[in-house]
């Protein structure tokens, strides 16, 4: 039996990653967390995630830098969903251009995440 999909939660607030972790694990997925771009790169390289939920504002820079760093390292690019507090069109365009599957504006409802995670992890082969 293949391992359950791994969801990497990247946010510098432990409150956020803890709440999302409960949700992700309740759905039967595996879960990893990271609080910075550097930490996320290390976690993603050690165990490639199926999905990344990525906060854009991280202590060591722009969250989207994570995708550049993974590409530079030749690592697979997981389905990435950006979480942002800024609901403007420019941010959305920037995320999609960087390769994000979707852009969710914080606060994200549980229902949106449940529906989204089912979609993003569907047919995944980690």
């Amino acid at each position: 039996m293949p391992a359950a999909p791994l969801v990497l939660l990247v946010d510098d607030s432990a409150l956020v990653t803890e709440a999302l972790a409960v949700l992700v694990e309740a759905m039967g997925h595996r879960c990893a967390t990271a609080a910075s771009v550097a930490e996320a790169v290390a976690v993603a390289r050690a165990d490639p995630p199926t999905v990344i939920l990525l906060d854009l504002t991280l202590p060591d820079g722009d969250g989207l830098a994570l995708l550049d760093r993974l590409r530079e390292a030749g690592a697979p690019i997981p389905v990435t969903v950006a979480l942002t507090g800024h609901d403007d069109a420019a941010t959305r365009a920037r995320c999609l251009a960087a390769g994000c599957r979707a852009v969710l504006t914080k606060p994200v409802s549980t229902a949106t995440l449940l529906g989204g995670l089912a979609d993003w992890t569907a047919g995944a082969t980690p």
Partner: protein
Amino acid sequence: MSKLSPALDPIVLLPSEGARPGALAPSDAPSARAPEQEALRSGARDPGGSPAVDANDPFDVRLAALEAQAGEAAHLIAELQARDRLKTQFLANISHDLRTPLTAIITHAEILRDGMLGELSEAQRRSVLGIIKGGHQLLQMVGEILTYARGAADQLTLAPTAFALAPVVEQLVVLNQPLAAKHDVALAADVPTTLPLIHADREKLTHVLGNLVGNAIHFTPPGGRVWIAARLAGGAPTVEGGSGRELVVEVGDTGIGIAPEHHELIFREFAQVDASTSRTHHGTGLGLAIARKLVELHGGRIWVESALGEGSRFYFAIPLDG
């Protein structure tokens, strides 16, 4: 007042010596001094280039004191403005940071509600629903404060697109139907689909409309009506070459109405006309101030026509082109 804001004192303090109230009035001055005072007023200076100030002249002393006061006042105003900007920035930061833990609380509660961690008893479920309901209400208010603070700090930007108003209004009516039903208020819209497309920030205009409709429902007694209408108004061509045409949107109600002397006040931040009504309304008091800010960002205007007991009609006008 002065106990609360000691920094303001210098503005109202008068020089303790050499001056008396009314000393500036020509009729008060000793007649022998009159020519010198005229010279001073017309800007005459002594050969050395400094103002002809006579330390013994009550007029000169008074003038110098006033100039010093004016300087201090200008300095204080600048300082207060700087503090006001800091406070606004603080408000924007803090409300942004308030949302993070609040969202986490709501997420945890929703996970419990959805039975993802096991089935809940009916009493447990009711309790969790209370957490979620309170959390969402708080989140909405924090969001409103954040929008207000960003607006006050000129950090709100528009993302305009061309869109039709009718579907936006239609969606809003559907969204507010449950609230209207709860208040036993009939909610209807009459927005012609033939209106031209509007070039504006859809989300922000939806916010303005939602705010006006929410207010109308809240302040209309059971059995009343709330309506949304829109029409095209042809204004005078503008200097910039625009046609002057604008889209005028109306949100009317048969509610308690607003006294004319409050028509300006209600669009100011923190204003709540009737505290007893507002207490049942659960508002931040920022809704209409935000609506005004968002409409003005579009180059439009917002106003109300109302009288006590005769319902209210809120209007906002958005320029269509130019």
